[in-house]
């Protein structure tokens, strides 16, 4: 049975990575759906935290921005952003942060600022938002990005949010006490990070994806985990939740 899309495999894989997690810092789009799916499957106690100051959201519609009013109504708590970043995030209450970016390197460092030179950019991107401090203060960082050669690059044009930095020097030596990027979920495969070198390694290929397809989209020599496996396809129940309840308009899953 292969009647599911690469986006659905990606969302399901991201949701499963949240097994047992209590608090997650979430953006809009794919991470939002993945978190809502996780809450109905592998992480029933999961609370959604948004940088706009929302803890424990129960969105009644798909939020179009992280400040959507549907995130407010029915939430557990709304707090000033000072509290959200200070008490929740820096205070160590956020287990996982979902991040993405226009560029990622093999150490999980992310660029959301510019493509090209900072002062004369080819593309001016939005910038950090809260990503820089999420990358530093969440206990673990999960990255969700589509696999494309122009995104998985050897050198970032700008380092907005630190991952494992240069790899060899551990985050802790720079005063970064939390664990940084743990997993990169894409539409073709899943990467994890080597605990010693901090380097990304191919952990799992989605059903039907060849290794050469992945290497072709990655701008460095790909490391492969010793026990490379195939991603478990979505179950009928996961697909039902996605299609009937979480994204009936197929905005993100199509």
């Amino acid at each position: 049975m292969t009647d599911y899309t690469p986006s659905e495999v990606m969302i399901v894989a991201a949701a499963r990575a949240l097994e047992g997690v209590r608090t997650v810092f979430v953006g809009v789009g794919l991470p939002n759906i993945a978190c809502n799916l996780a809450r109905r499957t592998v992480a029933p106690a999961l609370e959604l935290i948004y940088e706009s100051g929302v803890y424990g959201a129960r969105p009644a519609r798909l939020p179009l921005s992280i400040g959507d009013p549907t995130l407010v109504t029915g939430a557990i708590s709304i707090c000033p952003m000072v509290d959200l970043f200070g008490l929740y995030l820096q205070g160590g209450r956020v287990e996982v942060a979902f991040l993405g970016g226009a560029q990622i390197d093999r150490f999980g460092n992310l660029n959301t600022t510019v493509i090209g030179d900072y002062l004369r950019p080819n593309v001016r991107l939005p910038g950090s938002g809260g990503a820089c401090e999420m990358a530093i203060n969440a206990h673990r960082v999960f990255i969700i990005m589509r696999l494309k050669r122009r995104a998985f690059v050897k050198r970032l044009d700008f380092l907005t949010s630190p991952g494992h930095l240069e790899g060899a020097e551990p985050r802790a030596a720079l005063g970064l006490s939390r664990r940084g990027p743990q997993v990169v979920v894409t539409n073709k495969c899943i990467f994890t990070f080597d605990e010693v070198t901090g380097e990304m390694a191919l952990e799992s290929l989605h059903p039907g994806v060849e290794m050469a397809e992945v290497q072709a989209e990655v701008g460095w020599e790909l490391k492969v985990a010793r026990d490379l496996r195939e991603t478990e396809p979505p179950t009928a129940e996961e697909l039902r939740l996605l299609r009937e309840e979480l994204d009936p308009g197929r905005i993100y899953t199509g």
Partner: protein
Amino acid sequence: MKVTTMRDAVATYVHDGDMVSIEGFTASICFAAAHEIIRQGRRDLILCRMTPDLIYDQMVAAGCARKLVFSYLGNPGVGPLHCVRRAVEKGIPAPLELEEYSHFGMVGRYLAGAYRLPFFPLRSYVGSDLPKVNPLIRFVESPYGDGPIAAVPPLNPDVAIIHAQRADQEGNTQLWGLLGVQKEAAFAAKHVVVVVEEIVDGAVIRTDPNRTLIPALVVDAVVREPYGAHPSYVQGYYDRDNDFYLRWDEISRDEAAARAWLEEWVWGVRDRAEYVEKMGHQCWERLAPGEAWSNPVNYGKYS
């Protein structure tokens, strides 16, 4: 008497060259104030906002700004701010300088400003290129010997303009829903203009003091301006006009089209009331939310 018109509030508290914060994180962004600033032809403003959003894109297109201080530069979930890009890349209609932080950095700047502290320490920016492009983001040694910590300087705008649900005539202001940095920006600013959907009796404010985030103590002027935050939203009053956020992406790609929009909807109307009328009742019906009331709480009577 602090209750005044938007025209008088802007004339009195916003001057050429001022540092201006019109805050509100996605919610309660006071477009009505921005449009009046455009109509009065202010120039060389330093515009501070975590998310410049469409409001500063329009002010930049109108030639009001010389600099943006921000932490997320985009039309959320839609794309770039085209007018800001034109100004930065081509100097159209005027050159624009950028001073960039992360969200926690901007939040910390307002808090240090409000607390009258020399800086705000935060766990951010380690390994990031942001300090390389913004020399105001620095690292200091902890005086207690636990290593370096990032620091950002205080932000004390000349004026903060805060939109909220309601205030009394003195400016005791209540807000709910997303709180953003409304309180911190108000306490940090030298002058504060509060813009509200409704003016209520002071007795109403006193029935629910926990909801009063901004006291009259720091407020200079109060303006009643229903729908003053459109196309952003006010929790419980109207929804975000997501269609307009999408349409602005089209309009603003073209300099002439952006200008024509400003001609029609900003320079072409006298004030917000005319904008609201021109937008038409279908618009406001479309954006009206259903009801979801909180349960009242008992504060107790201690006499």
